[in-house]
């Protein structure tokens, strides 16, 4: 009925600790213009404002935060859908923005994505087999027979029947569609898959299936994941490393166990306090943070979190806190430390 994934409490690590991708002080500013003919620049939205992290081989790095925190923009830069305004993104130690020709093609093949909504991410007019094989055939010309073999392996690996390759997407349920999207992402044997809220559109009983499948495929293929999620429980189950973002900045970064056992930034604490309990007897530390995430158009001075922070001090509204090491594995950007 169930498949064993791994015995470890966190997903096991397959890699040798080398990082696949490294982001160094990445920024993405979107210009805001006024006027039709004479477009004037009236401001900038700092969607991502100096974010650094690295994703290790065979590991899952998760970005958490509320809407508008820049997690999706970051993922889009990793996918090279968006070009960073500043900063360097390194892939296998090389600057990805300088890739041209074959190198760029290789990068695009090595970084794939699975999106939130499996109803809109699959072409309704294509058979599932063609959907899954499309990236493969675009990148590596191969014979029909060989392609079919690849297809059968992929279908089996994601838990679909062989005959289902002939079906159209509408014949599948949400969970099965997500399996198809995962098979498509795996077809090129990528190094990294960006998972943008991969289970939040699915039913509760299906979520566990897909999360277990992803963990199992990570073991099997040795692929890294960049997981974008707002549900902390999902993040805790899936990740090795977690980065917490608030209004375009990284506020805390640590391995998953460290982050959940020793959350340090007031925002991380608030997120955990606001997450729903798993049992009625669990009483959370009351940590009500008032207000909402301010507009990224005009973020608060100093620490972006200071207007909502229960531990706010005088310098918080003046000085930008920088990410500093709390321990060799744990970084936090807060004046309390």
């Amino acid at each position: 009925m169930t498949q064993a994934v791994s015995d470890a409490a966190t997903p096991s690590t397959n890699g040798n600790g080398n990082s696949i991708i490294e982001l160094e002080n990445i920024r993405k500013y979107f210009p805001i213009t006024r006027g039709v003919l004479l477009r004037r620049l009236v401001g900038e939205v700092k969607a991502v404002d100096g974010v650094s992290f690295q994703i290790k081989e065979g590991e899952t790095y998760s970005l958490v935060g509320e809407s508008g925190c820049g997690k999706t923009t970051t993922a889009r830069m990793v996918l090279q859908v968006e070009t960073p305004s500043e900063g360097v993104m390194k892939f296998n130690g090389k600057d990805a923005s300088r890739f041209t020709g074959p190198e760029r093609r290789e990068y695009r093949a090595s970084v794939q994505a699975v999106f939130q909504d499996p109803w809109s991410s699959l072409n309704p007019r294509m058979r599932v087999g063609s959907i899954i094989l499309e990236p493969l055939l675009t990148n590596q010309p191969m014979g029909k027979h060989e392609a079919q073999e690849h297809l059968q392996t992929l279908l089996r690996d994601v838990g679909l029947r062989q005959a289902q390759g002939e079906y159209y997407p509408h014949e599948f349920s949400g969970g099965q569609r997500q399996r198809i999207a995962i098979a498509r992402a795996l077809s090129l044997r990528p190094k990294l898959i960006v998972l943008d809220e991969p289970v939040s559109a699915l039913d509760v009983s299906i979520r566990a299936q897909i999360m277990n499948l992803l963990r199992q495929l990570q073991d099997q293929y040795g692929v890294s994941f960049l997981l974008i999620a707002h549900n902390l429980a999902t993040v805790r189950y899936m990740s090795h490393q977690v980065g917490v973002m608030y209004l375009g900045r990284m506020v805390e970064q640590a391995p998953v166990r460290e982050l959940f056992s020793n959350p340090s930034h007031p925002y991380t604490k608030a997120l955990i306090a606001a997450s729903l309990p798993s049992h009625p007897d669990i009483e959370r530390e009351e940590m009500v943070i008032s207000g909402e995430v301010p507009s990224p158009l005009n973020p608060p001075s100093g620490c972006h979190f200071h207007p909502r922070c229960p531990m706010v001090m005088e310098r918080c509204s003046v000085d930008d806190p920088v990410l500093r090491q709390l321990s060799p594995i744990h970084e936090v950007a807060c004046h309390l430390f």
Partner: protein
Amino acid sequence: MVAADTRPILEVKDLRTYFHTRTGVVKAVDGVNFELYPGETLGVVGESGSGKSMTSLSIMGLVPQPAGRIEEGSQILYRGENLLEKSASEMRQIRGKEICMILQDPMTSLNPVYTVGNQVIETLRQNDDDQRSTSLKEKAIELLSKVKIPAPDSRFSNFPHQMSGGMRQRVVGAIAMAGAPNVLIADEATTSLDATIQYQYLSLLKELQEETGMAIIFVTHDFGIVAKMCDRVAVMYAGRIAEIADVRELFNNPQHPYTEALMRSVPNVDEDIDFLYSIEGQPPALDNLPPGCTFADRCPYVFDKCLEEFPPAVASDARHIATCWRLIPEFANQEAR
């Protein structure tokens, strides 16, 4: 908090809501029974297609016409009166004043071309004796401040698009509270909100409940909301209630295999989980239900009887009822197939 009043304010008896389509009858709700007491919070949990939303629409008298029909013999008793026998105009008096509903998406439940103040007044005008516009406006502003909208005077003349999702949902809350309802149905009311905003909204609903003593039905797919908010829970599967019990009893001692499996398949923020149990398969199609138990093909304990006949509701005590053959002593130790 369970009120001392022992007379239920709402009784749903053998509710069956069917959709008559060209291809057959879809049994969206198929024999649902529960009571709701004043001041109580009942959670209705289930996956999509379990009939939880159709149950709440049936109570509101808003079943989609003409395909949807509440079948003969169903009863929805509000203070002892059968709502199904009320005329359309009588129901209009009850909806919004006695029984209110908050829906998931505050983008679509507010009218984009009226100010939020106007929309609160619209409901007040339906329900209030004092029709002078100044006093209506005062009351509307009072309601907006009751749901903790900052600067309610100036927010009164805002349009929905000028507000954030959390604020809009508060406005919907204010509209719901305008009639001072006895029963509030919150159908996935916080699903589209961010974590910290959801937390604020849930706390707000609890405060309003304590103040007014209304009963709340939380329709949700999230056990976390149930754990945090509810006194009693009904777990729905394929149009029926699989299990209903007090919240602690349900979490500590789930008796239906579906409830048990569902709880084990939810990831947890509070502790590390080695391996998440996953329920294989999918819920059955509602227009082609199997003859026996609807959960039989996904159930780890299934035996012959389950495939032949739908199990009866078994009460292990007066407040804990589950529909499973294994709860009948005769079958208690039946080997799984």
